[in-house]
Every structure is written in C-alpha cells, then in structure tokens.
C-alpha cells in the first residue's frame, strides 16, 4: 500500500513534480488507517462511524443521549452510527456513571470532540477543493460546497483529515443550530432488547466458563466457621466448593447446579458481633439521637434561638426506613484470571474502580485488567461498588478458570448495601401574621460506609455533613431564621448510594412538614410555597447556588397543568411537592389520589413540571419522569427492608415488592420548561425525591390523615 508519505518520498527522489492526487479516495485500500482525532470519534475509510460511549447504560438512556451530542457536533448520519462502549485504559481513566451527571458532565467534552472531528473534515474538504471553510457546510455525514455543488462523504475525506492537527478549541454549534439535540429519538438499544440479543452481565458466556453461587453468612458481619461440602459435591454438575473472602463458592457446570449445590452445603457460621441487630431498635436509636446537637450545617438569622419568640410552634418527626435497590438483574460478574492478567465482564457503574481494585487484589498492574462493561439490568447506585466484581476475580484466580458468579434474588436482597434509615426532627415557628419565621430540620442518619468510611475530621466538617444531607440544607424557601443540623449514628449495616441518595428522605420530611405548616396556617400549600420563593432569588447554601425564581416558574407550570385551583370532590385529594436537585434540575409534582372505601389509596394522576435546562431528548426525559415516579411510589406504597437477629428479613419480591403495572397511575404527565440556557441538567434521579411528599400530601388532602412514616400501611388510614 502506498501511503501519502511514501508517495511524497518517491516523488522527491525521482525528481518529479509533486502532484497531490486529486481523487485520493480511489487510492485508498482497506488497510488504510481509521480517522481517530480523539478517544470519542472514529471514522473508518469505508465510512463506518464509531462513537464511543463513556457512561454505563442502565436504562437512563446514555447510549442514546451521549451519542446524540457527539453526532450533533460531528453532523454524522444518525442512522449510520455504531457505538463502542468505553473500557478503562489510557484514554479512559475515570469512567464512572452516577450523580445524574452523565449528560451534563459529558456535554462540553463530547461537543468539543465531535466539533474537532468535524473541523478537520471541513479542513480536508476545503484544502481539496481550494475553497474557504466558511463556504462549506456539513450534513448527515457529508461535506457540501453549495456554490459548486461539490460534495464528499466523510469516508472520502478521512485520510486527508487524519493528517491535520486536532483543534483544541473548535467552534461549537449554536443551540439554535441543533438538528438532533432536542429530538425525541428512540433508544438505540431498543431493537436488541426486543429480540433478546441485548447482552447484560448475566448473559456473558466465555469459553470454558464455570458457573458459581456464593453462600454468605445470613447475619451481616458474620463468617464461615466450618463447612462440609460432601453433600454439595454429590449434586450433579457441581465441581468444587471453595472458601473465598465473601463466603463459600459453589462452582458448577451450570447455574442451576450451583444453586442446587448451595442447598446441599452444610455450614456453621460464626455470626459475629451483630447477631442481635434489629431495624426496630435501630430506628429507636435514631429517634433518641434527635436530642443530640449534631453538626450545624447552616444557620440563617438566629436559627432555632428565635423559636421561643414565635407566636406558634409546630414540631414533627418523620421516619424513613432502610430500602434495597432490587434491580431486576441481580449482581453478577464474569472473570477470567490467567497468565498474570485478568479479563472481566461486568455490569458496572464504576469500571475504573473495578479495574483498580481487581488489580490490587491480584497484585498485577491495572493495565493487565481488561474490564468489559455490559448493559446493566438496573443500577440505581448499587453498581457503583466493586464487591461483586472482586469476588469473581478472587474465585477465578483460585480456580484458574473463567467463572461467572450470579447472585440469587435472595443474595441480592440481603447483601450489598442499603439506603440508610433516617429520622428527621422538624420545627417551625410562626408569627402573629401566620408567616413562618423559624425553620429547623435536624436529620439523624448514617454516613455511607460500604466503599469508604469517613474520617474523624470529616465527621465534624459541616461541608462533609452537608454532603450527606441533600435536601436538608439546600432548602429553596426563604424563612428568616433557619437552622439545619446532622446527627450521625454509625452502623455496621452497609450503606451506600441508592437512587437520589440523601435526597429522598430529606425531601419527604421537608415537603411534608411544609405542608403541615401551610395547613396549620390555613394557606393553600402551593401558593404557600410560591410566597416563600420571593426575593432575593439567588442565594448560596453550602457550596451550591440556588435560584428561587426557577423553582417558582416550575411550580407555576405544575399549578397550571394540574388544574390545582379546581377543587376536587370529597374523598379525593391533591398534594404538591417540589425540589431543586443538586442546584440544577428543578422538579415539581402534583399528585391526585382517591381514598377508597376500604381505606386504600388509588393514585389517579401525577403531574410533573421540570426545568432541566437544555433538553437533549424529550422521550428520554419523559421516561425518567415515569421511572422516578414509579420508583418513589414503590417506596411509599410497597415495602421496606427490615433487620431482625442481625439478618435482613426480606428475600424476594414477595416480601420486598415493588410497584406493579396494576398500581401504576393511569396518568403520569410531564411538562417541560422549554429548552433554555447553555447547559443540560440531569434526569436520572431528580424526579425521585419530590414524588414521595407529593403523594403523602395528597393522602392528607383526601383523608385528613397526616402520615409521617413510609411505607404506609392500611392501618395508617383506618
């Protein structure tokens, strides 16, 4: 193959005049280099465009929304793009999906990457046709020169473009020039999902792979004291029983044999120090701890010192339990350790963490650990941890064979980490004009401890505590005296991020208590909120800058669309709640319910108004609204996680059930503040926190019963 460089060399040596071939594309052959200006874009000489996705797909749509951003600036033909899922490596050292941050964090880097590639393709065409770049335009994978009617596909320009320098700061499109962004494009993975070919972690098959199931001490913190594998090894298909860090691994030729093997295992457990732990006692401990001062996170004016001066005082405690993630795909990982290297296939939100931790465990260089990120059958924050990947690597290293560990539903329910339980002490002071003048919120809960533990210094640091108390200190409302504190109760129960993390419990307490104040002062709860969102609009809470006017705008929208001001007949009620998530996405909900004669609640309608800045894909936003609504309704109407005698009591969807289709409101409506500004905000979590209080407030409106604990039970409404 004659490369351009060779051609020039030959021309120079032979003394012939330098002739740059005009129809360069014809001189290309299949072994020509692909155009790879950066880690995100690759265009092969045959025209195939590959866009790299740096976030894990867990249903939030990143494998569609992120390529949309790249394809927009690149002006690629959307119908012809191919996706590459990023793997940890020199180009990708910080792969991590969470925080509702995928779109907003990728926005600028992806736009720049796409625009850089496009600029180089334009430069190549401009040089080829000897015209200024400004006379050219791009569209669906083509460069066009309107004046002469000439055009070239990106494929034809790839070689020339590759020789150009990569611009560091290419011009980006104006928001008004977007063709793809803002469109309701369907999920790229849709087709493979509906024909069953989509590959999740559990679907990975590697030649020679064994299947394993790990038996863990039912009491958290316990371990194997002794075991007898004789019966287990007799189960057809079971090959070995191996003790690993997390428990006893039954290794078999198929998943069923492994699961059967565990039933035949005889184990004696050392239950460890927490065998008497119960969640009932834990909640009592949290309740008692509301008497402690804790760490002050925010104080405006006199704080709670102003309370005695108030004409009227209201106080209430709100209780929020433990929850499990319960994704439909249980934890799993496939690992193959061999010849001083390891390859992993894993549904993970944290690929680089997996690489680093596995490398540490195996005492090899991270570069020797290849992490393949599969689709995730539900993440919700659980798959930010590397625990289930580490045990697979450990087992494979011992076995010296590739192995897939699949957690049973019961394993998944009982082990891993949980959403922390919390108790919230709410206090308000009202003046003689019935205006709230004092606001107090003390959250008693547990820090995250599953992946790392806070230091003694962090525990005393207000900023660290604010970081564990979203929704407590970043209150949108203006009340002259405010005081928010955090009291930490340490626990051995593993606690980690669960969808919307620290926000759902705080927002539940806050938005319900606000409703209590509104009703106590005979104010309409929605107008009451608007009245507390006055000037100054922009203010700081901790490290966040909030804008009350944006929240007010969203509340006005939900008021209008829900028909809030039209009364409902007796037995039906409406509730409102709102929240600013991470100072970015603004969400307001109105829930409409009917209180049935049998004292159960029917959720008739949920209306959601959102301001998420720049709208990438309205179809995706709608699905995240529905997703967050249904997630939150599960937490109110279905089950919690409880502990007794040191172990989790729930083991399946039978006792930790989630909302089914027959309890889903017939109407969930989404209304968007039109796309504005220069930055999109996240949608994965923001719709979770305010849905809970909207529903609980609606229940009050329909029944007169104020509930301060979730999940609710029929007896609460009797």
């Amino acid at each position, binding site marked *: 193959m004659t490369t351009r460089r060779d051609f020039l060399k030959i021309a120079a040596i032979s003394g012939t005049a330098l002739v740059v071939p005009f129809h360069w594309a014809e001189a290309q052959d299949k072994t020509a280099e692909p155009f790879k200006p950066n880690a995100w874009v690759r265009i092969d000489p045959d025209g195939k465009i590959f866009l790299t996705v740096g976030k894990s*797909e*867990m*249903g*939030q*749509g990143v494998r569609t929304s992120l390529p949309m951003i790249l394809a927009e600036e690149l002006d690629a033909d959307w119908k012809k793009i191919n996706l590459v899922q990023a793997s940890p490596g020199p180009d990708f050292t910080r792969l991590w999906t969470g925080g509702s941050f995928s779109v907003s964090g990728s926005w600028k880097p992806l736009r720049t990457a796409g625009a850089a590639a496009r600029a180089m393709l334009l430069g190549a065409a401009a040089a080829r046709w000897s015209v200024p770049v400004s006379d050219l335009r791009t569209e669906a994978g083509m460069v066009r020169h309107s004046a002469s009617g000439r055009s070239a596909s990106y494929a034809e320009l790839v070689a020339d473009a590759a020789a150009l320098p990569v611009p560091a700061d290419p011009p980006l499109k104006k928001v008004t020039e977007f063709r793809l962004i803002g469109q*309701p494009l*369907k*999920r790229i*993975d*849709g*087709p493979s*999902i*509906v*024909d*069953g*070919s*989509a590959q*999740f972690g*559990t*679907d990975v*098959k590697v030649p020679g792979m064994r*299947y394993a199931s790990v038996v863990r001490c039912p009491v958290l913190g316990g371990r194997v004291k002794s075991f007898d594998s004789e019966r287990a090894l007799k189960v*057809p298909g079971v090959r070995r029983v191996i003790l690993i860090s997390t428990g006893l691994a039954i290794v078999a030729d*198929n*998943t*069923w044999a492994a*699961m059967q093997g565990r039933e035949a295992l005889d184990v004696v457990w050392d239950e460890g120090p927490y065998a008497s732990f119960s969640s009932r006692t834990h909640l009592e401990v949290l309740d008692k701890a509301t008497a402690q001062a804790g760490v002050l996170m925010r104080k405006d004016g006199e704080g709670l010192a102003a309370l005695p001066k108030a004409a009227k005082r209201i106080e209430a405690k709100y209780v929020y339990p433990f929850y499990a993630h*319960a*994704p*439909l*795909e*249980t934890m799993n990982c496939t690992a193959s350790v061999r010849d001083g290297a390891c390859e992993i296939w894993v549904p993970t939100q944290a690929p680089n963490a997996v690489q680093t931790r596995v490398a540490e465990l195996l005492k090899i260089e991270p570069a020797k650990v290849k992490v393949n990120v599969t*689709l*995730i*059958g*539900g*993440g*919700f924050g659980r798959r930010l941890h590397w625990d289930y990947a580490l045990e697979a690597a450990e087992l494979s290293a011992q076995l010296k064979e590739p192995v897939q560990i*699949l957690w*049973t*539903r019961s394993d998944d329910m009982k082990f891993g980490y949980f959403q922390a339980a919390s108790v919230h002490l709410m206090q308000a002071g009202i003046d003689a004009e019935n205006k709230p003048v004092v606001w107090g919120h003390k959250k008693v809960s547990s820090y995250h401890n599953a992946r790392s533990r806070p230091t003694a210094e962090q525990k005393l640091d207000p900023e660290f505590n604010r970081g564990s108390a979203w929704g407590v200190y970043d209150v949108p409302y203006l009340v002259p005296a405010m005081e928010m504190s955090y009291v930490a109760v340490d626990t051995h129960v593993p606690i980690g991020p669960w969808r919307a993390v620290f926000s759902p419990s705080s927002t539940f307490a806050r938005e319900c208590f606000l409703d209590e104040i509104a009703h106590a002062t005979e104010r309409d709860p929605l107008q009451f909120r608007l009245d507390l969102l006055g000037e100054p609009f922009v203010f700081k809470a901790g490290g966040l800058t909030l804008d009350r006017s944006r929240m007010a705008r969203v509340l006005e929208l939900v008021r209008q669309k829900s028909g809030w001001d039209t009364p409902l007949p007796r037995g039906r009620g409406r509730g409102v709640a709102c929240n600013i998530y991470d100072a970015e996405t603004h969400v307001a909900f109105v829930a409409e319910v009917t209180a049935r004669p049998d004292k159960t609640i029917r959720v008739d309608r949920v209306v959601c108004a959102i301001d998420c800045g720049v709208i990438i894909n309205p*179809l995706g936003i709608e*699905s995240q609204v*529905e*997703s*967050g*609504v*249904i*997630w939150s309704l599960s937490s109110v109407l279905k089950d919690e996680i409880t502990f007794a005698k040191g172990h989790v009591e729930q083991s*399946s*969807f*039978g006792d930790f059930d*989630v*909302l*089914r*289709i*027959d309890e*889903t409101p*017939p109407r*969930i409506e989404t209304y968007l503040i039109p796309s504005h500004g220069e930055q999109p905000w996240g949608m994965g979590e923001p719709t979770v926190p305010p849905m809970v209080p909207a529903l609980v407030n609606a229940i009050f409106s329909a029944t007169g019963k104020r509930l301060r604990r979730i999940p609710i039970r029929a007896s609460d409404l009797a």
Partner: protein
Amino acid sequence: MPRYALTINGTAKNVEAPAEMPLLWILRDFLGMTGTKYGCGVGICGACTVLQDGKAVRSCQVTASAAAGTRITTIEGLSPDRSHPCQRAWLQEDVAQCGFCQPGMIMSACSLLREKPSPSDADIDAALSENVCRCGSYPRIRKAVHLAARLGGAK
C-alpha cells in the same frame, strides 16, 4: 441423567438434564439462549416468561420433564426480524429503559393478546401484574400493548 425432547421455537432440541431442572436454565446455560432472564427464581417477577403451547409460563417454574412434549416459544422465536406486532409496538412506543424485564414482558403481552385480541387497560394490568419492571416503563407498556393489538398482535 434423563434425556428430554424439547421443541423450542419450532426446533427440536434434545437435552440431557435432571428432571427437575428449570426450563429457564436449560434455555440459558444448555442452549445458550440468553434472551429469557433470571430475576428471582421463584416465579414472581416474570423475567423468565416464555410461552408454553401459546400461554405465558414462568420458565423458572417449568421443569425439564414438564417442558418435554410441549411447544416452547422464547423471545428469540417471536420473529426472525423483530416484525412481530409486539416487537414493532415496543419499538414504536420506545418502551424499554434498561430492558432486562422486556423479553418477559413481551412474552406475557403475546400471551394476553392471543387470549384477548383487544384488551382493556384492566385486562392489561391483570395479565402483566406478574411482571416486574423496576425502571417503571409500565405507562409505555400499556400503550405498546394497545398498539400491538391494533397491529394484529394476536399471533
């Protein structure tokens, strides 16, 4: 170990398996057909739903011996090209979020439409209430089932 003559998506498959081994694992581990998913193993999440003689069953609760001699249809067998009305409807309504529950959901929907070619919302709720979707795609599932019905989904 006994041998069982299974018919999967119209094709004869002979497998050697313990009599009580669930069809779910025969499909996934012996036949490499991973479209049918494991969600709970106790028959209450619907992820493993397949059709047995045209009716939805939870394959984690169907043993090898019970599957023998019946016609099993999995998500892979609905069509060679995603043209089954349920698949087309699911794509048109952009139903899936993570997608893990959808094969089971689609199979349950197929079973419903065979029995009730024009189901009401209440029919849909009753038929699909055994299928968990943790992502909350239920509103779009309802729309997709209605659309599939209009597309002639009772196949």
